[in-house]
């Protein structure tokens, strides 16, 4: 095992917070996957639900999956970051409580008050819907999302404040002191700190943008005579939605850095190239939401060109540094594959594989004939399902192993194989549907689009079965995890376990 820069113990309350986040993540994930299957089978003509219900389910599926990935990513980030930075675990619990209340409000909005304006709730749609169906649904939904945003913002403020205190300024968390030659150190802060700093900067910005557009929508609902610019609202919506969704993987990737380095017994240090890559990732992630506006011809052309060019560039840090680093660190390392290490490695493939159709679609001439087709969910299901979600599942197994000495079962590997193969089937069906121009977010499909829906729906059934298996195994094993051991003890336990298994 490699020596780590462990300084602080992970408190009992922090562990409870981490497990709480993972429990909510897994529960929401299973529910949202079931909703996804219902939508695909309805589109494929195998079942029939009303369009109203379809779009309510679609709304919940979208926001639920983003929320799930954010909660799971936050669990990973907090768990590893708290080794290097003394975080207040009460803040993590506050985030959990506010998120659960927010989720409940969103479910009430959709299934009691039939809110169905999609998770992007593009202004002025909530106001128009409120006039037609009453304002309760929109109010529950918008305030629910706002509450979740407040929870995350509080968490990011705590993380940002502690990183700034520990490293002499927030930007030193991104290694600015080293990049600009203000220190003689050869390496910057641990990768977990670098990634967390990036997420704090990006997601705090995203939440403020989201809160602004939510407040605008609420004001417009309460007083329709107060109107806002629809294009400004769209900018704010995607500045929130794109960045927040994108940053889920930057939280979860902390687990890749920590776990692969530990298993490979090799250091994953933040050298200058690494730090520069993460600084550019921060900048690009903040900028490239404009690729969602490529078909809004009223947007200034220079901004749209930025959307294409910097979307291309945003692929570089992951392809040249993070994914490439993952390949290097495991190569000829003597690493033993288990659920944690194997899935973290697989997730790096999922991340890069998901970036490919995204980069292609960010090309303006391609976007002109593929935007808002099923190509788009094809990209982000790869990114989210084979990237972020796999990282979260890998962390669940790591947590139970590190904290509770629990071992993998052969059934876990079978579930992982099923999940991977059928997820490729699901994303393949989405991308193919995009190729044949099937529009996204249509409750009812034409016969020529239905085959891809059925293939996707059947694939999703196997994915759901595998996910239920992962979740049951997590819940079954998490009770064995201790609640008060230190990080040093955890490392020792993992070392002993590795020796035993080898």
């Amino acid at each position, binding site marked *: 095992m490699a020596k780590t820069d462990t300084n602080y113990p992970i408190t009992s309350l922090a562990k409870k917070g981490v497990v709480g986040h993972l429990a909510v993540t897994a529960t929401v994930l299973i529910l949202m996957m079931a909703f996804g299957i219902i939508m695909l089978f309805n589109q494929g003509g195998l079942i029939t639900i009303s369009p109203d219900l379809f779009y309510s389910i679609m709304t919940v599926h979208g926001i639920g999956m983003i929320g799930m990935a954010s909660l799971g990513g936050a669990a990973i980030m907090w768990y590893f970051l708290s080794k290097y930075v003394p975080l207040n675990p009460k803040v993590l619990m506050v985030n959990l409580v506010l998120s659960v209340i927010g989720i409940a409000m969103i479910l009430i909005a959709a299934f009691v008050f039939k809110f169905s304006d999609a998770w992007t709730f593009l202004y002025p*749609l909530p106001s128009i819907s409120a006039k037609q169906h009453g304002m309760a649904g929109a109010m529950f939904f918008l305030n629910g999302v706002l509450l979740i945003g407040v929870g995350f913002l509080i968490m990011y403020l705590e993380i940002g404040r502690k990183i700034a205190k520990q490293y002499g300024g927030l930007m030193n968390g991104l290694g600015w002191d080293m990049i600009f030659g203000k220190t003689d150190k050869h390496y910057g802060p641990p990768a977990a700190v670098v990634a967390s700093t990036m997420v704090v900067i990006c997601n705090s910005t995203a939440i403020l943008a989201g809160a602004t557009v939510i407040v605008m929508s609420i004001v417009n609902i309460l007083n329709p005579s107060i109107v806002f610019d629809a294009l400004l609202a769209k900018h704010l919506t995607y500045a929130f939605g794109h960045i927040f969704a994108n940053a889920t993987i930057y939280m979860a990737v902390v687990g890749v850095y920590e776990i692969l380095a530990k298993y490979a017994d090799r250091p994953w240090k933040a050298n200058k190239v690494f730090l520069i890559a993460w600084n550019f990732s921060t900048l690009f992630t903040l900028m490239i939401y404009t690729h969602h506006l490529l078909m809004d011809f009223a947007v200034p052309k220079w901004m749209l060109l930025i959307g294409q060019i910097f979307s291309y560039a945003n692929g570089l840090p992951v392809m040249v540094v993070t994914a490439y680093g993952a390949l290097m660190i495991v190569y000829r390392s003597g690493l033993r594959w288990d659920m944690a290490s194997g899935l973290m490695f697989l997730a790096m493939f999922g991340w890069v594989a998901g970036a490919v159709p995204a980069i292609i679609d960010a090309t303006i001439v391609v976007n002109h004939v593929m935007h808002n087709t099923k190509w788009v969910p094809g990209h982000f299901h790869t990114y989210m399902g084979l990237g972020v979600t796999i990282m979260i599942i890998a962390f669940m197994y790591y947590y139970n192993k590190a904290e509770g000495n629990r071992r993998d079962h052969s059934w876990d590997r079978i579930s992982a194989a099923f999940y991977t193969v059928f997820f490729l089937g699901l994303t393949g069906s989405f991308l193919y549907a995009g190729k044949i121009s099937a529009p996204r977010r*249509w409750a009812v499909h034409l016969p020529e689009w239905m085959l891809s829906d059925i293939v996707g729906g059947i694939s999703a059934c196997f994915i759901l079965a595998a996910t239920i298996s992962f979740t049951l195994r997590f819940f079954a094993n998490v009770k064995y995890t201790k609640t008060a051991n230190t990080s040093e003890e955890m490392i020792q336990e993992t070392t002993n376990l590795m020796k035993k298994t080898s």
Partner: protein
Amino acid sequence: MYQQLAWILTVILVFALAVVFLTIARKTARRVDYQPIQEKGYRIRKYWFISLVSVMVIATFFSLRNLPYHDATAAAASGAKVVNVEGYQFYWKLSQEEFFVGEPVQFNVTSMDVNHGFGLYDENMQLLAQTQAMPGYTNVVDFTFTKPGKYQILCLEYCSVGHHVMVKEIVVKEKGGASDGKN
């Protein structure tokens, strides 16, 4: 064409990625010193980085030469037929619904309520062009039909529970002829 290109490129690149990851995953059993791997890895990375940047620069150069954004001067010079398109929940209203092959058309697209997406589909339900229909803004799409037939305009931005019924058929005829191309 772009849809086919995107699909083929994605399949090839994702397959290549899978091969790389699987190959490396199979080469982890024997442990060797990390230092030489890092030195060699960083050397290869330089070329990998230069290759990726080169591909991106070339793709940018060629793809930006033919942007779909409205060129008022070119449209005026071609004498394009101007068509006003308004999106409503859940229907399209066009100032003209019949067009001719070879005739440049300028669609001025807006919305009278919420965001919609103007998606122009051919008879094979292949997406040919699109823009967003936004309240308070007019987005202009220039298009010249090359084949006669019945085309569809589908809504491509979610606009509430009738989103999927927001379809409008338009007809394109040969100049002075019928929509099926048989004069």
